[in-house]
Every structure is written in C-alpha cells, then in structure tokens.
C-alpha cells in the first residue's frame, strides 16, 4: 500500500468516489459552523466593529490561495519526475480553484479595507503580491488552455509552475522592499496567537478547515472530470478510426 497506487486513474476515481461525499459533508459542516459561529456568535471588535467578521472568509481564502499554488507545485514536480497523469490533471484542476480563492481574498480584502483604511486598494506589499499571484494563475490557466496536445501542455505548464514559483517568491520580497523604500506600508499584521482572542480564533480555525476541505473536494471532483473527459476523448478517437 503506497501513495503511488493512486496514480492509477481507475484506483483514483474509485477511491475518491468513496471519499468525496464525506469530504463534501465535512466541508459544508465546517464552513457552516465556522461562518455562522463567526458571523452571529462572536462579539464585535472594539476597534473595527462588525467589519472584523469578514475575516472568516478573507483569511481562509487567502490561505488556500497560497496552498493551492503549493499543491500545484508539488503535483507538477510529481509529473516531471514520475509522469503520473493524475498528478498533472490534479494540478490543472487546482489552478482555477486557486485563482478563485485569490479573487475572493482580494475582494473581501477590498471590502474590509474600505471602511478600515478608507481605501479599496492600497499598494501594500501583501495586496500587491496577491495581485501578482493572481496574474500567475491566469498565465498558468491560459497556457493549459492554449496547447492542444495534453502531454505537451502538462510538461510546459509544470515547468512554468516551477519557474513561476521561484519568481513569485522573488516578487514577494521585491514588493516588500519596493514599498518600504517609498512610503509606509499600510501595516496589517495579524499575529494570531497574540492579537486575537480565543473567541475569534476557534471559528476562524473551523472556517479555515472548511475552506481546505472545500478545496480538496473541488480538486478531487475536477480531477475526476478531467480523467473522464480524457477517457471520453480517447474513446471517440478510437470510434473515429474504426
């Protein structure tokens, strides 16, 4: 029994089929608990008022936006090294989900920033690097869409993912440098253990867990879809020959 067994598409589909409903239920449960608890049963922050409650969407989505890219990086590496098709398809499946998470993080951040900082957008290092991350997602998805041959597309996108990761990290630090060098950053440090009391902490963690499970469920589902779509195409091609 090893992890690589799931590189077999049949095995992958049968296992995820069994697990998927549970993950959906768990994700929905966690999200519902976390969000409802967060929205209705936590006190307002004494400085930020009720706007603090957007944190239960903002922080988990931002977390998953980065983790989705990490997952794509790992999947790309697996594809390059061991050439398991499921891995390449999982990376492909994760990209739009990650892009949407990035958008959610940016938009909720804007909604939060408007009353708090008095502006929808600030060229703060964090905001800027998230925007750049979003651009990377767009490029990655566009490259997948543009290339017809599946294996070529998988190869090229996985290398793009590797190179892009290096440049994303570079950008993160470059942006940090750029803004501090110019004007004071709109500092927004949220050091959890110190700044946030348990009242906010527990629903936030549950909500993060919910977002993570939702991501896993979506990636499983989309990977299954990709596998089945590819199988259908292969069948159709065989029909055409015969």
């Amino acid at each position, binding site marked *: 029994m090893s992890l690589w067994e799931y590189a077999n598409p049949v095995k992958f589909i049968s296992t995820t089929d069994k697990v998927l409903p549970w993950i959906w239920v768990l994700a929905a449960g966690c999200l519902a608990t976390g969000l409802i608890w967060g929205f209705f049963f936590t006190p307002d922050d004494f400085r930020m008022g009720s706007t603090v409650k957007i944190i239960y969407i903002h922080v988990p989505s931002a977390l998953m936006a980065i983790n989705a890219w990490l997952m794509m990086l790992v999947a790309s590496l697996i594809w390059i090294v061991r050439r398991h098709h499921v891995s390449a398809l999982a990376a492909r499946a994760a990209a739009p989900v990650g892009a949407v998470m990035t958008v959610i993080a940016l938009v909720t951040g804007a909604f939060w920033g408007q009353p708090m900082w008095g502006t929808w957008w600030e060229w703060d290092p964090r905001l800027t690097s998230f925007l*750049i991350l979003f*651009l*990377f997602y*767009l*490029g990655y998805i*566009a*490259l997948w869409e*543009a*290339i017809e041959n599946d294996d*070529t597309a998988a*190869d*090229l996108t996985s*290398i*793009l993912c*590797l*190179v*892009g990761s290096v*440049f994303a990290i*570079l*950008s993160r630090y*470059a*942006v940090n*440098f*750029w803004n501090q*060098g110019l004007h004071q950053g709109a500092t927004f440090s949220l050091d959890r253990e110190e700044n946030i009391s348990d009242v906010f902490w527990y629903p936030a963690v549950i909500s993060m867990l919910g977002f993570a499970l939702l991501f896993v469920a979506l990636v499983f589902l989309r990977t299954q879809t990709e596998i089945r779509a590819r199988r259908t195409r292969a069948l159709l091609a065989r029909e055409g020959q015969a």
Partner: protein
Amino acid sequence: MRDLMLAFRAGGGFGLGLAFFLIVTVLVPFGVGPQTDLLSRIAPGILWIGALLACLLSLDRILALDWEDGSLDLLATAPLPMESIVTIKALAHWITTGLPLVLAAPVLGVLLNLPGPAYQWVLISLAVGTPALSVIGTFGAALTVGLKRGGLLMSLLVLPLYVPTLIFGAEVARRGADGLSVQTPLMLLAGISFGVIALLPFASAAVLKINLR
C-alpha cells in the same frame, strides 16, 4: 554561429524596438500632461516601463522565425547543447534590442525632463537589468513557440516574471534621481540578472525540447 544569427537578425526589426520605445515615451506626456516637475518625477519609471514593453514586443522574434523555417530543428540536432543555443539566442536578443534601448534611454530622458543625477543611474540600471529581461523573455518565447496566437499569451506569461526586475531596476533609477544610496537595489538587480542568466536557460532549453518533440 553567433555572427550568423546576429546578421540574420539585423535584417528585420532592428530599429523597431527603439521606435516603440520612442513612441511610448512621447505618448506619456500626452497622457499625464506636460508639467515638467511631474514628468521628471515619473521619468525613471516611464523609461523602465518603456524599455520593458519594447523588449516584450520583440520577444516573439527570438524563436518564431527559426521555428517557422525549420532552422530550430537543425539547431536542435547540432552538437551544441540546447542550453547554450538558448543562451546565445538571448544574448542575440539583448544585443539587438536591449543594448540599443540602454543607449537610447538617456536621450529619451531629455524628453521627460529627467533630473540630472538620474541619467547615469537610469543607464546603469538598464544596462544591468535588460539582460535579465532578455533571458526571461527567451523562456516565455520558448514556452509559446509552437502556438499560432502565442504573442498575447506570451505577454501574459512573461509580464509577471518581469515584476522583480522592474521593481529593483526602477528603484535604482528612482533612488539615483533623488540622490539616495542605490547600492542595495543595484546589488539585488545584479543578483537577479546573474541568477536568471545562470539558471533560466536550463528551463528554457527543457521547454524548447518539449516543444520540438
């Protein structure tokens, strides 16, 4: 082989990047108004962005022509490793596009009322940064070489990769204009350039091999 490619390139599009650079710099005052103090403040950034766009515009020439007439396949079967072919391609691109841009930047700086001390730093930062633009661009060109409508996609892929180079390059020019110390961003910019030149050809070569398969 290097000379061959340079001659090959000198035929078409040599001045095109330069002309584009000129147009961008001329258009900016129309867009933001002719106030000289405003222009001189944004001049270093404009020069950098203009150079970057001019560089981007000429990227698809790096490999597309060779791809179309099949000489890329010939080069691939040549005894030279793909990595060095890619590096030489990037070098050729830099000599035909990057270097003229570097040299033209101070002239265009006059149009934008670039402050006095900034001239040398714009020149230096572009000289250090444009090789990185060429090498990164070659990677983008290698990624999209087989595609019919690769140009737009390549811009989408390459521009985010240009972010760190642009940030440090423009920072050098801006600090130079303000008379501040430029050492840190200049060293970081040089670090990016050298790192990219050393490592990215491997990725470009791998990508090109996949595309030629």
